[in-house]
């Protein structure tokens, strides 16, 4: 709350009642400005733990709040690059983003879900440029190393998150944030929650392994070859843009990841004993 107030004071003098806050996920700060203070207060609660005091921002968005028009989030999503600018559209929002200036605009109703989708898309585009990606996976840190648990809905991401021992730090039960850095791949906590309905911790750790989840009659781990691993990984990467060059980048990023990070199939009975295998 303090950050929002401080930012509000500094901004109000230069921009007509525009308020702002910075949402920082994966060490990428995104500044959000709006004239609607109640909306920003809502975001501050939604992204608690990820609202930072960063003065610099990698991306800046002006949010114009419009009345709901009855069109929902179930409409088809469109993410296209036109004349160098990204255009993001779904029934419940429209957004533009100029990657040259890293500034953009969002038009939506006063709800936290639309901007949540925009943030996921913007992060996925930013990460694709550096060989990194968002993954439909739970992740947790144990003994200073991060473990990823990927799978489609129902595969057990939330279940294995609930079964995590007390010494495990949950990064997310739904959308994992993977960044390629000089020393290897790192997983970051995200506020993107699944059935657990709880944000992850805003910490990061080097990735030790990726587990492909499957439920079965016993707990066991099997190694997975790189080709099969890349197919499974590509099925779980969140990428929304219809852009040939970035599609190719994401593919190469997935291939690079499975070449460097161990990938296993983790079959598990829903009991806490499965975590004895995660070391």
């Amino acid at each position: 709350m303090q950050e929002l107030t401080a930012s509000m004071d500094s901004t109000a003098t230069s921009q007509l009642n525009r308020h702002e806050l910075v949402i920082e996920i994966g060490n990428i700060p995104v500044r959000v400005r709006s004239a609607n203070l109640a909306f920003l207060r809502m975001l501050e609660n939604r992204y608690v733990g990820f609202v930072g005091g960063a003065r610099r921002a990698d991306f800046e968005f002006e949010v114009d709040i419009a009345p709901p028009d009855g069109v929902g989030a179930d409409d088809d999503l469109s993410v296209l690059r036109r004349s160098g600018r990204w255009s993001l559209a779904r029934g419940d929002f429209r957004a533009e983003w100029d990657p040259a200036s890293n500034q953009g605009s969002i038009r939506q109703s006063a709800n936290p879900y639309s901007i949540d989708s925009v943030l996921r898309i913007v992060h996925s585009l930013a990460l694709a440029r550096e060989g990194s990606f968002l993954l439909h996976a739970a992740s947790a840190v144990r003994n200073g190393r991060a473990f990823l648990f990927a799978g489609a809905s129902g595969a057990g991401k939330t279940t294995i998150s609930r079964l995590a021992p007390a010494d495990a730090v949950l990064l997310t039960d739904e959308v994992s944030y993977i960044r390629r850095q000089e020393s290897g791949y790192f997983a970051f906590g995200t506020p993107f929650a699944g059935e657990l309905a709880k944000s992850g911790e805003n910490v990061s750790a080097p990735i030790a392994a990726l587990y492909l989840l499957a439920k079965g009659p016993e707990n066991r781990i099997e190694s997975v070859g790189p080709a099969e691993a890349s197919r499974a990984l590509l099925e779980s990467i969140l990428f929304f843009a219809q852009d040939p060059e970035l599609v190719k980048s994401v593919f190469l990023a997935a291939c690079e990841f499975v070449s460097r990070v161990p990938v296993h199939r983790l079959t598990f009975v829903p009991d806490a004993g499965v975590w004895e295998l995660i070391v």
Partner: protein
Amino acid sequence: MTKKRYVARSYEIAARKLGSEMMIMSGRDSTLFSLNDVATVIWEAADGSTSLDEIVESRICSQFEVQPCVALQDAETLVDELASHGILLVSHEPIFPPVPLQLEAR
């Protein structure tokens, strides 16, 4: 006499060999392809300047136990399928400039 056919890898794809499998992603429609051994040989030889019958004769028939006419027929079918997905270019003339074979990530 049947005209020669030349094949070249498309610029619209990314490819990487993982283990023994050649994985290819179409940037155009995000379709993922996995090639078997024979298809991989043709893919790697598709430099735009070597005709398909030369590829079959020098690369397929020399490595795999297959009759040349059968190998060429199978290769024609494979090439047409890959071309229909936009991951191979096919022409009756040599295709220039050749598309480099890049199997490594950045």
